[in-house]
């Protein structure tokens, strides 16, 4: 058939339209991943002979156990807090939707614009008794100097609170959105059967948004492992030394830019990537969130109405 030549030409245009994105994906997504691998066996002060020992060496770095303890402590507060509070809030918002819900949701999204450097500034102010909006609460707990709060051992809680504050609002709205996808017939049926709001939330709504909860848990977990900006800025700009190499990414940064040990830094980056990759594969292959058939066989009523 005369189609074959036209076929190739046809695909040429499509390839051309795909090319810019493909270039970016390969150059700044796939390539760095590969380069990270090849950077690992480079020679450095810590790894004078080079080679794949870099993995073992970075794990034995004297700062690694501390970073592990810090990040593990942080995650232990941060991840459950995120999941429980976010889902709880979303379910509570969904109990009764009235005109106030819209304003509540707007309020929840406000902290999402306070992240990174701005978050450090804002939280420094909140915990500074002389200027804080909650100074009466601080005074009530006997805190009259910010130094009482900003201690290295408190960082696991403080960073967890700071990060939670920035991220919770976003996710509350997203999970609230996912609750809207539950068909009203199911809800009606449950209500008619005498379900209380609590039972409705826990027994019916929650299981139905399971895949979105998993999606959130994976992203929150993977993101939490990579905590960098807040402890780094606290360490360099606010209280020098309070958080030196506190998190894995800070250690990686230090290895790369203070010790010139790119091999070690890359090794650490790869180690950190592994949980994220596993999480990614779980969400892709174990939930149907991204399944082609889920997407393609949507009912008409489910069609995207942007």
């Amino acid at each position: 058939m005369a189609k074959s030549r036209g076929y190739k030409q046809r695909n040429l245009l499509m390839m051309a339209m795909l090319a810019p994105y493909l270039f970016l994906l390969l150059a700044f997504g796939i390539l760095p991943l590969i380069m990270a691998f090849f950077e690992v066996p480079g020679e450095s002060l810590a790894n004078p002979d080079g080679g794949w020992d870099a993995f073992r060496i970075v794990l034995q770095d004297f700062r690694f156990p501390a970073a592990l303890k810090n990040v593990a402590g942080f995650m232990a507060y941060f991840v459950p807090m995120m999941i429980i509070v976010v889902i709880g809030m979303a379910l509570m918002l969904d109990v009764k939707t009235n005109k106030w819900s819209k304003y509540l949701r707007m309020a929840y999204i406000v902290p999402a614009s306070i992240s990174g450097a701005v978050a450090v500034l804002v939280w420094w102010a909140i915990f500074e008794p002389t200027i804080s909006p909650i100074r009466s609460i601080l005074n009530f707990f006997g805190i009259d100097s910010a130094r009482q709060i900003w201690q290295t051992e408190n960082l696991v809680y403080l960073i967890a609170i700071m990060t939670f504050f920035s991220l919770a609002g976003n996710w509350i709205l997203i999970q609230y959105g996912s609750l809207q996808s539950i068909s009203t017939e199911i809800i009606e049926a449950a209500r008619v059967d005498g379900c209380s709001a609590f039972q409705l939330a826990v027994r019916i709504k929650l299981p139905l948004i399971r895949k979105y909860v998993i999606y959130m848990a994976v992203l929150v977990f993977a993101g939490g492992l990579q905590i960098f900006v807040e402890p780094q800025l606290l360490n360099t700009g606010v209280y020098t030394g309070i958080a030196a190499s506190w998190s894995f990414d800070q250690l990686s940064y230090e290895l790369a830019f203070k010790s010139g040990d790119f091999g070690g830094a890359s090794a650490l980056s790869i180690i950190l990537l592994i949980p994220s990759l596993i999480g990614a594969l779980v969400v892709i292959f174990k939930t149907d969130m991204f399944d082609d058939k889920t997407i393609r066989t949507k009912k008409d009523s489910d069609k995207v109405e942007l």
Partner: protein
Amino acid sequence: MSTLTESPKKAKKQTRHESRIGMFFVNSWLIFFAAVSVIPMIWLLLASSKTDPELSTRNPLAFGSFKGYINAWNNLTFFDNGVIGRWVINSILYNAAIVVFATITASLAGFVISASRIRFKKTFLISTLIMMLIPPVALVIPLFVLMDKVSLIDNPLSVILISSLYPFGAFLSYIYYSTTIPPELYESARLDGCSDWQLYTRIAFPLSGALLGLLAFFAFIGNWANYFMPYVMLYSGENYTLPLGLGFLFSSTPAINPGVGATSVPIYKPEIALAGALIAFPIMVMFLISQKRLIRGMLAGSIKE
């Protein structure tokens, strides 16, 4: 015993009423959380309207004066010959470029994957999904090495190019085009003699308005306050964006850390707060006017509203 003889009209109302106490607790908690969410932002936005001493003496949520903002800005310009102006311009320019590149490349990619018959679609989709779920921060060190090898360190182009990679956008775009345009439409258009280009210009593009808005929204809010990657790529003050500049102000002015920085520079808490507000305010505005976009985007179009 009246249940058996209740009229059908009453039988409908068998659904349980919410316990008053339960609803009270739920509502109180919702309102409390809203207050907690909003108070820090109010503090931030109003801090620069007050003078430094006023921050301690007056109510933290009180409004000072409009002149306060102007003073704070003027003081900021004393730092390093007005480099703050440069930071603002850089933030705007870099982000404009990023939003444009990211939105265009991602929307085209999504279209191609949903509309064409190119091979390796599945591989492509999976690699995009994986990139979506890996925190961008994880790749910063390898990206630095890469940029160093092509001599783009301290060049804004490094930040712009890296940030233009938008796997989330490509995925969103794929979902959008897949659900709004059935493949049969492309087939019949092809049978009618439509070229691929026309498939895009006549069918897909006219329907892309909402998608492009969504992509631009996420690209903006994801990049405006970005810190780690630009921090690693850029080292000259003139190339900094506002977030980098703010971090720099922490460590080089006495505002937060009285022991640090030249004391001749009049940068104290109101000034730093203004810099912070310049970063947070645009994002907040974007969020408030585009709530629905946030939800639809993150759930990749799998909900209806």
